[in-house]
């Protein structure tokens, strides 16, 4: 049994009006425990609509979403519990901070789950540690923090519910290079330390290549590709047609291959490209 399963999901915005728009069209997928999945697709491809179904913020017009084998929309108690077990962190989550202190903001989720005070404290401390926020931040107002820090408080607020599945919608959008590096490395640590499932929506193929093991590509409300990072990035021509990119190092390797070098172009990270190019130089690489 998969941890999360989507079966033949269809969702239509403005249903019954002249402006009907089929945002999801017969989408099926399953996610296993511990997977790190990247969801990519251009704006309007249905990514956000899909993730809002995964914790029942939207209800399917047809099809099902199963969490641990149960239909999450079957009864209200189940829906409520799934909202805590599938934690959704929206784009620009710092706009959703509202409490008077950092501690209270991170504690909002676990408190709502009905945890006791000491359990809440433990959950908040754990989540703050995941995002690298020291406890002396707890009594500060979240609005006095920098953009990157606010983002981390917001992510911690979702992690504090200890969800089985953590969904992050564009977690690095709008951050400077260093802010991006910090967020990516904390997500990586969270995955290794907890072994929990993470789904990350991203426009940055370099981020995707450095984090995920599997990529799902959405296009016009359908799943266009679903496979390993390697399988998906190999289809660069199709990705480009859908308004997407491949990592820049892969573009370099593909171009060298086209010019007759014996390079393996299924390399997606900087370090991998460095090793591959050194190998090519050492072995002569069939250079023209």
């Amino acid at each position, binding site marked *: 049994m998969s941890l999360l399963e989507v079966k033949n999901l269809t969702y239509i915005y403005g249903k019954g009006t002249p402006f009907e728009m089929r945002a999801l069209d017969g989408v099926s997928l399953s996610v296993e425990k511990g997977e790190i999945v990247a969801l990519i697709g*251009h*704006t*309007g491809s249905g990514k956000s609509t899909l993730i809002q179904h995964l914790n029942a913020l939207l209800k399917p017009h047809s099809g099902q979403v199963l969490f641990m084998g149960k239909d999450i929309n079957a009864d209200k108690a189940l829906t409520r519990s799934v909202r805590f077990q599938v934690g959704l962190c929206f784009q620009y989550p710092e706009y959703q901070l509202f409490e008077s202190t950092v501690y209270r903001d991170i504690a909002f989720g676990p408190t709502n789950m009905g945890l006791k005070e000491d359990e809440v404290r433990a959950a908040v401390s754990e989540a703050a540690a995941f995002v690298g926020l020291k406890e002396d931040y707890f009594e500060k107002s979240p609005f006095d923090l*920098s*953009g*990157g820090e606010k983002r981390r408080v917001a992510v911690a607020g979702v992690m504090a519910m200890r969800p089985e599945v953590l969904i992050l919608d564009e977690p690095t*959008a*709008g*951050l*400077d*290079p*260093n*802010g991006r590096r910090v967020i990516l490395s904390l997500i990586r640590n969270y995955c290794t330390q907890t072994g929990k499932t993470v789904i990350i929506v991203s*426009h940055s193929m*370099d981020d995707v290549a450095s984090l995920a093991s599997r990529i799902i590509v959405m296009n016009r409300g359908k799943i266009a590709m679903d496979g390993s990072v390697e399988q998906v990035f190999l289809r660069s021509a199709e990705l480009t047609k859908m*308004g*997407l*990119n491949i*990592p*820049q*190092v892969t*573009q*370099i390797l593909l*171009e*060298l291959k086209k*010019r007759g*070098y014996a390079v393996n172009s299924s390399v997606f990270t*900087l370090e991998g*490209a*460095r090793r591959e*190019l*050194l190998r*090519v*130089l050492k072995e002569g*690489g069939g*250079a*023209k």
Partner: protein
Amino acid sequence: MTNKPIIEFKNVSFRYDSEDETLLPLAVKDVNLTIRQGELVAVLGHNGSGKSTLAKLSNAILLPAEGQVLVNGMDSQDEALEYDIRKTVGVVFQNPDNQIVASIVEEDVAFGPENLGVPPAEIRKRVDDALRAVNMYDYRHHEPHKLSGGQKQRVAIAGIIAMLTACIVFDEPTAMLDPSGRKEVMQTIQKLNREMGKTVVYITHFMDEAVEADRIVVMDDGKILFDGTPREVFARAGELKAVGLDVPVSAELAGLLKADGVELPNDVLTVSEFVSAFQKAALK
């Protein structure tokens, strides 16, 4: 470049007011910077380095606490010149949703020239020209909130074009857009500079976008750290990383391989440059 200066910062410092009595640190410290007519200048710097403050100082949205900002020689401290300054330098911000004021695309674009008191017939022409320049003319009767992010940002840009400002300052205009939206906006900006002759100041976090500029200014802690061509600036990978920035991926890969002893030039910036440099190195 010997063109006339359009924006001059002379020993400019600025500090934001705090809500209580405490004195906030200077956001911009003793900055000297000259932007010349026709230039495309990218401004880099981590969050909080003073980039956006610089943008707002450039058309009198903010006024310097010390020093002078001159726009075509007009001092921004002189309230009587405020309109003339804003007719010379326009600013496009990060979030398109915060910049759109009307419920129909063409009315939004007309908002700026209307406020400048431009006659109606002239407004009609300016709006049409501006929407054509950003490839949004077919959407002139659409509702802005139904457009994509890249489209909305192009409408915001059209609003500035319609004011016929000689210089446009962009404050992270692609931060909230997807790759195709970013491409649309970048192409529009290139066109404004290369074809329409506008002076462009372009604030960004994307190193690959900065490669396209004539000149890059790097801000750190309210001060200008570097000011030079993309090649000069991106050759300083170590120093850029130390202030929380990056270099383009191609430059970074070239740097790694150089450290491994591969003979590559110091100034590789793009995929195609990397590929030709690598071909040369492989022949050695």
